[in-house]
């Protein structure tokens, strides 16, 4: 055993002459890669098949003047459909409504969701389960059901809101919430917020749970008030979680459809882009024009993503690509 220095020295010499070894190893690597794609492949292909293919088809269709009611008259119009859309006031109004809904819901949800997250985070053990269960009900409920619930509560015929809040200025028995853009949007946004705040608050809860308690305690010892601790310690450390939550919700709110469809059907100036696309292609069977709206909507989503990632440096994928 006392010859081990020699072993060490000769090992270095021998290892250089070993070239067959890597070949055998790379066979193993190849096998692992093959298996990786074999397992991940089907899901990957399905995801592409149900999204990439249709959006490409939509991009292609959008170049034609094509109605299902008159399939024979299909003709190539280039970017003509886009010209029609972008010069149509209706499109810009719908875009405005969509953006308004998105901004308002996300802002309100951020505040409300953070409050809920704080409550769930700090809650005593005895009520924590109850609170989380309650919070999950709106999350799990069907959006259409939520839309009907809010619709019936405010509806001039079957509602009780007018009755309950008649003492407020501007509200009386004859207020038809769904006959005016402002009031209709108010109820639509309320329903949207109710249904999706739980999701955002769970994302924020996850971020909150990641802020080490020591930081908070250190700030406490340093003499920070509750508000200072929130603003200077907790929130900065949750920035990533907040950004991800905001982006996800913004993209989700931007595709709002169900609530508007149920409550107003887009009437009284409450139409959103998704509804415009639906009405054009499914309703009026104008596939070419509808496809163009779809593509524009898709580009809007890409833009929001791009802005969020480039400007606000939201790290969506983060470190998740690598092996943990």
């Amino acid at each position: 055993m006392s010859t081990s220095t020699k072993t060490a020295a000769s090992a270095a010499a021998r290892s250089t002459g070993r070239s067959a070894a890597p070949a055998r190893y790379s066979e193993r690597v190849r096998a692992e890669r093959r298996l990786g794609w074999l397992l991940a492949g089907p899901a990957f292909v399905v995801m592409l098949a149900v999204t990439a293919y249709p959006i490409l088809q939509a991009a292609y269709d959008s170049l034609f003047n094509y109605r299902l009611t008159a399939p024979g008259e299909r003709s190539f119009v280039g970017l003509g459909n886009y010209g029609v859309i972008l010069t149509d006031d209706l499109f810009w109004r719908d875009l405005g409504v969509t953006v308004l809904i998105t901004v308002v819901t996300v802002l309100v949800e951020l505040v409300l969701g953070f409050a809920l997250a704080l409550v769930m985070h700090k809650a005593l053990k005895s009520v924590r389960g109850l609170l989380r269960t309650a919070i999950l009900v709106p999350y799990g409920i069907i959006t259409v059901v939520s839309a009907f619930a809010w619709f019936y509560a405010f509806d001039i015929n079957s509602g009780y809101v007018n009755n309950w809040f008649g003492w407020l200025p501007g509200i009386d028995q004859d207020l038809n919430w769904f006959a005016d853009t402002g009031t209709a949007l108010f109820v639509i946004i309320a329903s949207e917020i109710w249904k999706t705040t739980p999701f955002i608050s769970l994302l924020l809860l996850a971020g909150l749970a990641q802020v080490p308690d020591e930081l908070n305690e250190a700030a406490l010892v340093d003499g920070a008030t509750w508000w200072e601790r929130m603003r200077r310690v907790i929130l900065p450390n949750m920035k990533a979680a907040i950004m991800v939550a905001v982006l996800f919700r913004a993209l989700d709110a931007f595709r709002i459809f169900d609530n508007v469809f149920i409550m107003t059907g887009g009437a009284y100036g409450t139409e959103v882009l998704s509804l415009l696309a639906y009405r054009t292609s499914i309703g009026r069977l104008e596939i070419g024009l509808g496809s163009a709206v779809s593509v524009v909507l898709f580009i809007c989503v890409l833009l929001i993503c791009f802005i969020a990632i480039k400007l606000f440096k939201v790290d969506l994928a983060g470190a998740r690509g690598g092996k943990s």
Partner: protein
Amino acid sequence: MASITLRNLVKQYGDGFPAVNDVSIDIADGEFIILVGPSGCGKSTLLRMIVGLEDITSGDLLINGERVNEKAPRERNLAMVFQNYALYPHLTVFENIAFPLRLAKHRHSEEEIRRMVTEAARTLELTDHLERKPANLSGGQRQRVAMGRAIVRKADAFLFDEPLSNLDAKLRGQMRSEISQMQRRLGVTSVYVTHDQTEAMTLGDRVAVLKKGVLQQIASPRELYEQPVNLFVAGFIGSPSMNFLPAAVEPDRLRTPVGDIPLAADKLRAAAGRQVVLAGIRPEYFEDAALVDEAKRGHGYAFTAELTHSEWLGNEQYGYISFDPSPEIRRLLENLARDMDAEELRPQIVVTLDAASRIRGGRPAQLWVDTRRVHLFDPETGLNLTRDAEAGQALTAEAEAARKEEINLARERQRVPVQG
């Protein structure tokens, strides 16, 4: 029980990096072998190659003389204790220990399993916890469950992958002695991976020191300590670490930053032809000159130095002397520190003084160094120029004899029924 032979084992990863490079070790039946080294030295990879969780790129692995390179882990009949215990969280302690027995389906009856698990639980003091889930156990208890799973197997050998690194210091000491006693009682061949040199020194019959996949030296703890083959082993084994002083070789003395040290002629001869060597002196080779026995004084050399500060530990105290090395030497020491996975080596000498010494920092003091035990290292190759191979082998042979005796004693004791 089994002997395990590693013959020129190589593990190469996809990028061609050899994690384990040409390692050969003969592990005798019943021997306790430690694989030690800084992180990334390939010790865990080597262990996983033995147990069959990593492919062997080249070389042979023999268990009881039979080549097992291609065998699946379950065909090797080895038991392993993982770093974080690898307890099955969905199973109770009982079922965790019974797991390997249940896998060997038709070999054990339900009754037998119950008997074997209860028996193992009794030796490990887990009887009260058999129905609990691992999540409800303390660190030490989990550790014992993991050992229980190894014990019931009647495996040919036990492999440990840093089993104590997740425990606190006090528990670590306790579990260390439990593992040691268990190994002797069962007389089972064991391979134990650790980066903690206290574990290495206290547990191992022989300790294999690895660096960057290459076996540096395998020997009894005492041989490693007293006759290290190179700078790395010398620096890695021992705490506080050995001091390395740059020294110019003169015909009858070494010229060092703390003064000229006269040295025996044979040592100086071994270093002949080199301008500069590194003198390796362990902290405890120093002493307060005032407290050295007259009989010993002649074997060493007294000199004056100024301590920057000292630390009193009760049973002894450490003194620190700083010196300013040349840039080359500084770089050399930094590389060495990096190899050993340590923080930067400060250019200072640590000396261990008797607790009664009145020497304090900031004033010149008379120190004494035992020059017989100084080793000289080649700064280029790191080789120990003054290593006495024969003396080293004698130390390891001594340890070997002691191990045989202990195992025989343990077997004898087992034959005589112990009461209680």
